[in-house]
């Protein structure tokens, strides 16, 4: 198992370098003078000279790439042109919310997707099955952002004065914030990785609440995450439900299931212990693949629900031509996606012992 993990990690290196190369290439590929595109109206010949020297743009691109790679490895993502702040700081501020949203959506989609899929497979061709599959087909065809808007309309306007009201925008109700951990512990003079880690953790709901005991903010934050999570999770849920159904149906037709039934095992155990174990492998694959759609969905949905996450910042940066921010965020999201797929690969090895051998 250890060998398997290390081989997978080793295979990750070329992909990671490729990702860095592409994000590096994004800025290099912009037509025209990078100084003029980045500084815009503020670009004067003197300023340009300084700019080119500061970012090392006068050198050969291989040297530039090497330096970029080195900086990335050290956690230096450059400085935002618009905000004149290190990109890492912006990531530490914005990424936690996007991760929370993605995780909540993932939990929602996996839970309900597997449940619906299992029910459909067990009650094959029943009314529930047909309805689930129709809904799954509609689910995969809906634009995430549109579903978000419709959910906001239903739960925030139509159900306004009922107990089912759910807030349609923002991360918290007015006047509520998360307490910064560096303030909580009085650590103001830290820098580098500890600062990033501290800022990152203090922007995550649960760790923050555990440390500061601020449970009301957590409740409020999770309440605000309900609608976005449903919006982001619906497409993956539909995909997972379909995959669960077909995968379970296939497994249920195999001989060993008949054997299990023939030896008198109760149906619940046949399904949970025998069938699901094998059916899980394609389901886990699809969950891994859907991480990409969850992350993209989170980016899209943040703009609908006015959530201050990676998505809103990324779109703002693109429109403002703040390329270091675009680079940094693209890189981080791609890394998360790659790591999620690594986790999926590792969970195969756990679910299917045959994979560990070869």
């Amino acid at each position, binding site marked *: 198992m250890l060998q398997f993990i290390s081989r997978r990690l080793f295979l990750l290196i*070329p*992909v990671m370098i*490729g*990702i860095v*190369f*592409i*994000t590096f290439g*994004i800025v290099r*590929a*912009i037509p025209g003078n990078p100084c003029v595109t980045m500084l815009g109206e503020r670009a004067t010949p003197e300023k340009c000279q300084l700019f080119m020297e500061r970012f090392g743009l006068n050198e050969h691109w291989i040297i530039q790439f090497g330096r970029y790679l080195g900086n990335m490895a050290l956690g230096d993502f450059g400085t935002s042109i618009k905000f004149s702040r290190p990109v890492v700081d912006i990531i530490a501020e914005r990424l936690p919310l996007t991760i929370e949203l993605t995780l909540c959506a993932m939990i929602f989609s996996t839970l309900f997707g597997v449940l619906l899929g299992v029910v459909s497979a067990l009650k094959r061709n029943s009314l529930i099955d047909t309805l689930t599959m129709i809904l799954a*087909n*509609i689910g*995969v*065809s*809906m*634009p*995430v*952002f*549109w579903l978000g*808007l*419709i959910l*906001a*309309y239903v739960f*925030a*306007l139509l159900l306004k004065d009922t107990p089912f009201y759910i807030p*349609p925008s923002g991360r918290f109700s007015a006047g509520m914030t998360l307490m910064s951990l560096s303030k909580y512990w009085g650590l103001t003079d830290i820098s580098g990785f500890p600062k990033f880690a501290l800022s990152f953790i203090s922007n995550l709901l649960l760790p923050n609440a555990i440390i500061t005991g601020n449970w009301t903010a957590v409740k409020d934050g999770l309440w605000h995450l309900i609608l976005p999570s449903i919006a982001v999770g619906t497409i993956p849920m539909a995909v997972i439900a379909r995959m669960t159904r077909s995968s379970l149906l296939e497994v249920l037709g195999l001989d060993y299931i008949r054997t299990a039934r023939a030896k008198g095992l109760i149906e619940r155990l046949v399904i949970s212990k025998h069938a699901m174990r094998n059916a899980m492998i394609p389901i886990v694959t699809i969950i891994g693949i859907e*991480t*990409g*759609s969850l*992350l*993209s969905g989170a*980016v*899209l949905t943040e*703009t*609908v629900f006015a959530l201050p996450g990676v998505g809103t910042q*990324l*779109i703002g940066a*693109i*429109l403002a031509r703040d*390329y270091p921010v*675009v680079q940094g965020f*693209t890189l981080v*999201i*791609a890394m998360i*996606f*790659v790591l999620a797929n690594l986790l999926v690969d590792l969970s195969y090895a756990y679910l299917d012992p045959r994979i560990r051998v070869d």
Partner: protein
Amino acid sequence: MTKMADLDSTKSNLYQRQSPGKESLRRLFRHRSAQVGMVILFFLIIIAIFAPVIAPYDPIKILKEAKRRDTPCVHILGCDESKTEHIMGIDGNSRDLFSRVIFGSRLSLQIGLATISFAIIIGGIIGALAGYIGGWVDTLLMRIMDVLMAFPSLLLAIAIVTVLGTGLINALLAIGIVSIPRFARLVRASVLSTKELDYVAASRALGASPMRLLFIRILPNSITPLIVQGTLGIATAILDAAALSFLGLGAEPPRPEWGLMLGEEKNSVFNAPHLLIFPGIAIMLTVLSFNLVGDGLRDALDPRLRGKPVS
């Protein structure tokens, strides 16, 4: 009646084997979800072709006499006869929403077809080269495809739009590029599995040129999976294009693009929800139709399912 039909079909199975193409078509037309998909798609195509006839107004003309974000008014549903009829209401720029939604169908179908044709051609060439030549060419091309697939596709498209600049054509190019790896892998796999087969060796022994081997002998084998993946890919491409336009990175106003229409009115959820409901349903139906037809094609073209009853 059904019995007779059953008898007929068994008879034809017994006495005259249908060609695989005919059999697949027959299976496709009997596939229930494909039937639904094809009906929706048929109507969409009709609407797109006859958009100028169906739409009562010019989709980009500002109607001076209409009230901005006015609710839908349909006379048969009890709307006051004195008001002008606007089936889906008026949008934020005093344009007839129905006409815009109708014209949007043209754009979305074109977007889907254009991006996927581009991706299939480029991806097909890359996959064919990688599979046929093999060696370092294969390794290099496929590692590049791996890296492209390491990004969530919509985010990579967003990053590419950053480079190319916003606009519909650039957005389409971006979506086309991110769809390439899928088709490249598919064609490569199919080339790899066929190039060592006896009939290819026979053709080579007869002196066929590499080009002839590749295009006449090997590549036709990938057409079936390409049709399935292409149809499903169109659905994704339409969704992604709508998303880019929604974010303001794709189609520019006043173009009647469904995603853009949603993006322009995203803040009117509470005061004019009709402006969001109709374009969204239009996107959903279009994507749904391609998804259903794609699923149907997959089942119909799967040789393992041939001769079995359709679900």
